[in-house]
């Protein structure tokens, strides 16, 4: 694996924090067709990914072949690598529960980050506004999808991004205190 490793330039357009088996992994990706650049734990790997059929992706990670399978058990998605099941969670800033788990249930400050690069299409609140749980704050367009970002808690809007801004993954969109 050593040969393919390299210093990671800060050029990834997809950044995810994945929780797996109680650990959190930061995965940064950049895509060129079937070939991807992958940064994991600050190390760079080449990755080739080909969907085989629904629920099956063939992966070549740094020349090593894996078949990833995904199935659903009840309402939980399982990922299978080498016949070992894993439960992976990708916290999504659009989802209320994910935000709660990241900021901690007791915390009253919510910092909403962009999960993918995109454009802030609309902002529906102003700084220092009082907002309710579930109130729509802004609309982020990413991967050709419009996503309404809602407030995870009741509080005051402390920081707010400007309408029309292009954001990168990980940028702060709004802070509700």
């Amino acid at each position, binding site marked *: 694996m050593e040969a393919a490793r390299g210093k990671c330039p800060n050029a990834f357009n*997809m950044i*995810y924090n*994945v929780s*797996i*088996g109680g*650990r959190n*992994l930061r*995965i940064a*990706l950049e*895509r060129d067709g079937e070939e991807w650049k*992958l940064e*994991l734990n600050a190390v760079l790997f080449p*990755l080739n*990914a080909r*969907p085989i059929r629904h*629920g*099956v*992706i063939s*992966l070549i*990670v740094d020349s090593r072949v*894996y078949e*990833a*399978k*995904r*199935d*659903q*058990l009840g309402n939980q998605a*399982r*990922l*299978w*690598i*080498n*016949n*070992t099941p*894993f439960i*992976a969670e*990708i916290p999504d800033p659009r989802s209320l529960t994910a935000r709660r788990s990241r900021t901690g249930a007791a915390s009253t400050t919510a910092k909403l980050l962009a999960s993918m690069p995109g454009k802030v*299409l609309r902002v529906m609140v102003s700084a220092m506004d009082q907002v309710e749980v579930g109130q729509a704050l802004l609309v982020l*367009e990413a*991967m*050709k*999808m*419009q996503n309404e970002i809602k407030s995870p808690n009741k509080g005051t809007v402390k920081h707010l991004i400007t309408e029309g801004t292009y954001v990168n993954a990980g940028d702060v969109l709004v802070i509700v205190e």
Partner: protein
Amino acid sequence: MFNKILIANRGEIAVRIVRACREMGITPTAVYSDVDRAALHVRMAAEAYYIGPSPALESYLNIDRILTVAKRCGAEALHPGYGFLSENSDFAEACAISGIKFIGPSPASMKIMGSKTKARQQMEKFGVPCVPGNSQALQSPEQAKQIADHIGYPVMLKAAAGGGGKGMRLVTEPQQLQAALEAAQSEALRAFGNGDVYIEKAILNPRHIEVQILADEYGNTIHLGERECSIQRRHQKVLEESPSAFVDETLRRRMGEVAVRAASSAGYTNAGTVEFLVDKDKNFYFLEMNTRLQVEHPVTELVTGLDLVQSQILIAANENLALVQADVEFRGHAIECRIYAEDPGNQFFPSPGKITLMREPSGPGVRLDTGVYEGWTVPTDYDPLLAKLTAYGESRDQAISRSLRAVDEMFVGGIQTNLSLFRRILSDPAFRAGKIDTGYLDRLLTSDARIENHEDAQVAAIAAVLFNVFENETQSVGTANNGARLSDSNWKRAARIESSNMET
């Protein structure tokens, strides 16, 4: 020869019998319950008949319904498979009365072997070794002491009405006997309302080894060697192999001869299995006889080259056995893994449900007897056996390597299965060294299982992201393609133009 056989069973064994019929030019005729309309055995059969609601009592165990179908469809013979009605002598008798040949032994020999006490008496009469002891209730502590002294310690006290370990006591020394007897009797009384306790020599950490026999209707009986079935969980076999790593040429011949004698003594015909407990000094004791085809018959088929289901059908059709004992040759080694829909993470609790993704293993030396397919919903009404994965090799080592490779190739998604258990067994040094007995699996399961593989976890995290990305892609195909499609209505086109204007 028969033209049509009714298969009074379901699942993988019904599929197995369908295959034998096809190969012999016989019309395989299936039966099915409500929930089994789309089961594999129905899809593969030539004819199929509905026999009732899903609960087995109202369908696969319903003698009247099955016999009505058998007569109506014109089957000359009926194969009961294993389980369900296969060891029911009343059913075998009812078949005979209806003029339908039951593919199995006569009702009379089924009755002898079906009763523990009758079978034991019969076996003792014909010099078949049984576990030393008495099978009648002990009358007094003095009588218990007398018998225990005679058969030698350690001894086991067992409740006559028993089961599940209740009323059982292991006694290793004479001075423990009286207290243990009182405890066993009161426990048996509380558990079963019957305080009768009998005494048997305790066979510590025995192996469970069985011998396959074939007998035609002209008095010819042969054995096809042994199957090692010591890997069990709660008396349920999990993995079987042939030959047993513990059985040498001499022991095989002795056990084979005894098995043939046991079968002949009961006038046994067709395929059957004599089960033995074997102690560490290679003493073996008659346990019981199974008067049907066994689940694990494929391992015997692979090492003998014989087709047991076809043999059963030929015997039932009054054919002579095609071979004598001296013709039976053993070659190589075979291992069967019973793949169940059950959760190894939750005490092997049954896990029925829809199989959303399935990959079947193949390649050299691999045989899969399956009763399921991708898209099939494993019903809650029956045994959760999905498939039997049997691997053959020239040696035991090769059979183990092939089994492991095939288990790794196999995938069943959407439900829980015990596939991971076989990976543990097949790579366990004690198993690979042949050091197994009936306590093996419990010991393995109490040892620590978790081997954290960080690399697999990392790949799983990457895959989780990629599944998300690819999924979003397919979801956004509609919006990505803004070009108007000619087949669209004006209404749809207008809506799309409007929404794309909004986005920019």
